[in-house]
């Protein structure tokens, strides 16, 4: 195998390197070199020219567009702030203010909406008279849930009042 190739004295293109006695063709080595050489010739790059080009490009930038982008960013931050405040309200423990009962009311609202959907669904496929009965059940359900919610709020309020009183005691002592 190797012998027949090595005797090929007419083909001068085959030369130089060998692997396990097999001469490696010049073309294959060249191909590999080309694949690994970066296509941009770094030696020809003038750094001063690149800097000048960059400065030019910066000067070309539209100040109006920059201002708009800044304003958009400001708006986005405002939205984020609002989002944060709302989240904070939900995570705060219940206090004496009625406004801060939002999480409990919301729970009831979700229940109400889900229940209404069920009623509408049932009445669509059965006798519509059933709607009245179901609405009454809904009212009862909502009242019951409100009671539960309110008792939870009251309990939380009592606890926080107690805690505050204990803190005040500690301060006096």
């Amino acid at each position, binding site marked *: *195998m190797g012998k*027949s*190739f090595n005797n*090929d004295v007419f*083909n001068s293109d085959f030369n130089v*390197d060998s*692997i*396990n006695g*097999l001469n*490696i*063709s010049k*073309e*294959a*080595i060249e*191909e*590999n070199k080309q*694949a*690994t050489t970066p296509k941009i010739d770094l030696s020809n790059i003038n750094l001063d020219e690149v800097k000048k080009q960059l400065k030019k490009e910066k000067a070309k930038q539209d100040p109006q567009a920059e201002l708009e982008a800044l304003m958009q960013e400001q708006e986005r931050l405002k939205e984020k702030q609002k989002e944060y405040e709302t989240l904070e309200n939900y995570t705060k423990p219940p206090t004496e203010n009625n406004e801060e009962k939002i999480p409990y009311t919301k729970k009831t609202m979700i229940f109400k909406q889900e229940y209404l959907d069920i009623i509408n669904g049932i009445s669509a496929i059965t006798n519509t008279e059933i709607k009245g009965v179901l609405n009454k059940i809904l009212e009862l359900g909502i009242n019951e849930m409100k009671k539960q919610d309110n008792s939870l709020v009251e309990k939380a309020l009592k606890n926080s009042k107690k805690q505050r009183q204990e803190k005040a005691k500690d301060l006096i002592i």
Partner: protein
Amino acid sequence: MTRTIAIINNKGGVGKTTSCLNLGVALSLLNKKVLLVDIDPQGNLTDAFININQLQYTIKDLLEGTITDINQVIKRNVRPYIDLIPSNNLLNGTEEKLLNEMSRETILKRILEPIKNNYDYVLIDCPPSLNLIVLNSLTASSEAIIPIATEYHALTGTNTIIQTIQKVKALLNSNLRLSGVFVTKYDERTNNDREIAEAIQNNFKSLCYKTIIRTNVKIKDATNIHKSVIDLDPTSNGAMDYMSLAKEIINQEQLIGGVINNG
């Protein structure tokens, strides 16, 4: 990105074809699209999927250029998620014909180039040699994996393979790297196997896969009936070892370009 892996060892009977077959099946079961390239004239990998006597075209036709359309040679879906480029004993005379070809080391690379991106893994089952066909496999690959059997002189031949890989990397394929070695035919009951496995692990350190392919009668049974051990008995040690090795190979995906780029 497609990983083209040459499974290489110039020793015969170390489990190259068995590993190529079972890794291919294991990778396909792990949802990887696999192309198996049988470049061994023995055609044992081909035999696991199709009748080698009924092949119209093989890898030989592509290498010799008698067929230029790879789609005429490729066998689609020989198993779900697996395609195969088959081979048979006709490949024996090909090397001599290629010797006077231009850029003869890159022929396989050029053959696989248009289709390899259709796959996650291209596994090349190399013959037990370090000839021009194997150089083609290494030039076409991004990685090489060496199975080493727990046999006497197991490590002596590996130096030659590693030198070959280094030379190919230097001259023909700078993207090539050795992804790892793994121990095959391991019988934990014998001192000899334990010592050799330990020597391999000490020698290759992090380049040695944690999975060891244990000797397993089911692997032999599967070979006898031209099947993968995973298909024959998925609960056998052999099947579990190859599934584990496939997972290790997949996990290397995160390291490519990083730690395993061993220069």
